């Protein structure tokens, strides 16, 4: 029997792949190659092997500080955002259609506003002397001294984490709501008949069947979190000291303020490998539950 190779799958992917190769893969490879080169402003490039890695990664203490800050930030932000998104989506799903529309809009809309503006607003909220947060806390007598949110090395990074946590996980909620509607009601009916209470139903049926969405949200949030840029740039510029210095702004300023593209690329390559490793772990441990009969 002749085995014809089915080219349909490839055809479906072709359009995306073409754009991808030209506008993403090519620049990516060029950028990664730059990690092994010395780029002059005149455009000349010289191959320098691992020198950029030595200078920019191994021997640069600031890179490791930035890495530490970024990892800490991500460890807090990613799981909480995804989990909160799940909880809120679950709660919204319980409501009537009218309320669902209201809350969907309410929780998604903040994401519509550009991150720059949101960061400016939060920066004002965190102002130690007359920002709203301190004013409220002082009035409610929960604190006696104003908290130096962004003006102290100790509080700066936690403040950014707080901002991330209190920011509405809009897209997570929308996606979870969409995925929840994919779950047939019959499963819940069957479980009810077997005497499972509502929480068990949620934990044993809903959550596992949302694994695909959860995986997507975890990976995407991790990528976004490791590449956090705007908040740092607008609110603290990496300060005080190096307290909120993160990897992505560091790379950016290495390239465009210090004009050291090779080193910036080397640092970016390292960051990439770290994110890739974490994502692979996430892919492995959140197994797909396609069939559920």
């Amino acid at each position, binding site marked *: 029997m002749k085995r014809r190779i089915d080219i349909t799958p490839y055809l479906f992917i072709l359009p995306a792949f073409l754009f991808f190769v030209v506008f993403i893969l090519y620049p990516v490879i060029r950028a990664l190659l730059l990690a092994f080169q010395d780029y002059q402003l005149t455009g000349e490039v010289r191959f320098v092997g691992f020198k950029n890695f030595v200078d920019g990664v191994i021997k640069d203490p600031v890179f490791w500080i930035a890495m530490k800050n970024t990892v800490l930030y991500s460890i807090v932000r990613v799981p909480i955002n995804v989990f909160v998104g799940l909880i809120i989506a679950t709660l919204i799903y319980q409501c009537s259609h009218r309320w669902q529309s209201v809350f969907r809009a309410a929780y998604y809309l903040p994401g519509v506003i550009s991150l720059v503006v949101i960061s400016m607003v939060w920066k004002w909220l965190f102002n130690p002397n007359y920002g709203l947060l301190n004013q409220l806390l002082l009035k409610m007598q929960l604190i006696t001294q104003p908290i*130096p949110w962004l003006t*102290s090395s100790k509080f700066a990074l936690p403040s950014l984490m707080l901002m991330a946590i209190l920011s509405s996980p809009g897209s997570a909620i929308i996606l979870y709501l969409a995925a929840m509607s994919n779950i047939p009601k019959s499963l819940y009916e069957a479980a009810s008949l077997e005497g499972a209470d509502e929480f068990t139903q949620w934990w044993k049926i809903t959550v596992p069947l949302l694994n695909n969405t959860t995986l997507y949200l975890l990976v995407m949030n991790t990528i976004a979190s490791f590449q956090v840029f705007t908040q740092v740039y607008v609110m603290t510029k990496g*300060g005080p000291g190096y307290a909120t210095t993160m990897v992505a702004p560091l790379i950016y300023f290495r390239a*465009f303020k210090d004009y050291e593209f090779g080193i910036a690329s080397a640092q970016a390559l390292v960051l990439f490998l770290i994110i890739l490793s974490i994502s692979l772990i996430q892919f492995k441990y959140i197994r797909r539950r396609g069939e559920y009969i």
Partner: protein
Amino acid sequence: MNKSIKTFCILIILLFFTLSFAQKIEINLTEFPRWSYGPHGDKFGWIKEQIKIFEKKHPEVKIKLTELPWEGGIEKRQISVASGNPPDITAYGLNEIIKPILEGLIEPVDEYLTEFDKKDYYENALNAFKYQGKIWAFPWLTTGIMLFINEDLCKQRGVVLPKDGIWTYDEFVDAMKKLTFDKDGDGRIDVYGFGYYVTPLDQAVWPFIYMDGGRPLSEDMKTYTFDSPQAISGLQKLVDLGLKHNVVLPGCAAMGPGDIWQAFAKEQRVACAPWGSWAISALRDPKKSAGFKFRVLHYPVSKKGDKPITFIGANGFVIFKQKDTKKLKLCVELAKQLTNTENQKLLIHYASFPTRKSASKIYETDPIMLAAQKIIAYGVIVPPHPEWTKIDDKLSRQIQLACLGEISAKDALTLPKIEIQRILDRSFMKKNKK
């Protein structure tokens, strides 16, 4: 059949047009928003008019203007330069073009300065663009930082300011103490004498560190010298303002110019703050400020008789290397037009100072601008080292921590020594390799 003839004709016409345009020499000019010009307040109005004047004189030239926003504009220009797509002519400070100069991307302009130019330009304006013995831009304007003080608050608290604007550190502290008070009687201090900010590439508080003679780099820029006792004592004086004398808005070192402006100009919760000369016109704008009377003063000196010091920044029009000599000549002429006496007189709208003596009388009737002019006469520039951005970044962060009281002044200036010395050594070796 008809259709293809039509397309063919259109193509021919297009070809004709592109060819006729191709004959024009195109100059790429990149500029930032400046002052509001014309009846509608176009911030690019001045440069557009200059372009019209030039194109009229030279009909074979077309000048393409790229209007940059302040937000992100500097990065965009940097990326253009780094990707081999630089503008032909644009305004820079010397520090921004050190690396391009070293790569041979900039045209030196010494040979284009006439005898009149050389005499007309202030000496420190020309020096502000001198590197490795050559001049790299047509000087245009100078700005500088100085201390601004709220005269209404001074009157209220009985503070007498020095007539010539020069005061010692102790006199400064006394004044600040008087200006730090509880306005509404609730037991908490509402108004602070001094407020400042520490951000990379902004030397707003560096004159304090320079006060006792401390300098970041040696004359030949080969050695790190900021850990000298003089520098440390200077920084200590700055730090003491907040930690010992309590006259500083708490946490301001980490806040940023925007917040301090709000506090100083709008809410009057800070009596004195360092700003560039641009603040003089901003403080006279009822939209940007609460409209109080103000004065500009020198940064305090260590002891009576010392010369005050401050930082200046000079901007000049830079021409990127041209292959076509005809185009180069046109660019030079354009740069000279933009920086001629008449145009420099227009800087009165931009609250900055001309670099030409022939234009410097514009502020004769403005006492505050005159005072500012006197202050920046004592101005120095940051060391024109190719790796200055890295050095400044490390120092700014440590200085910030010291001002917040998280590390000592001594640590702030000694901790970065090893890193910075390494940067200096590597840079020196690189220069020699070339």
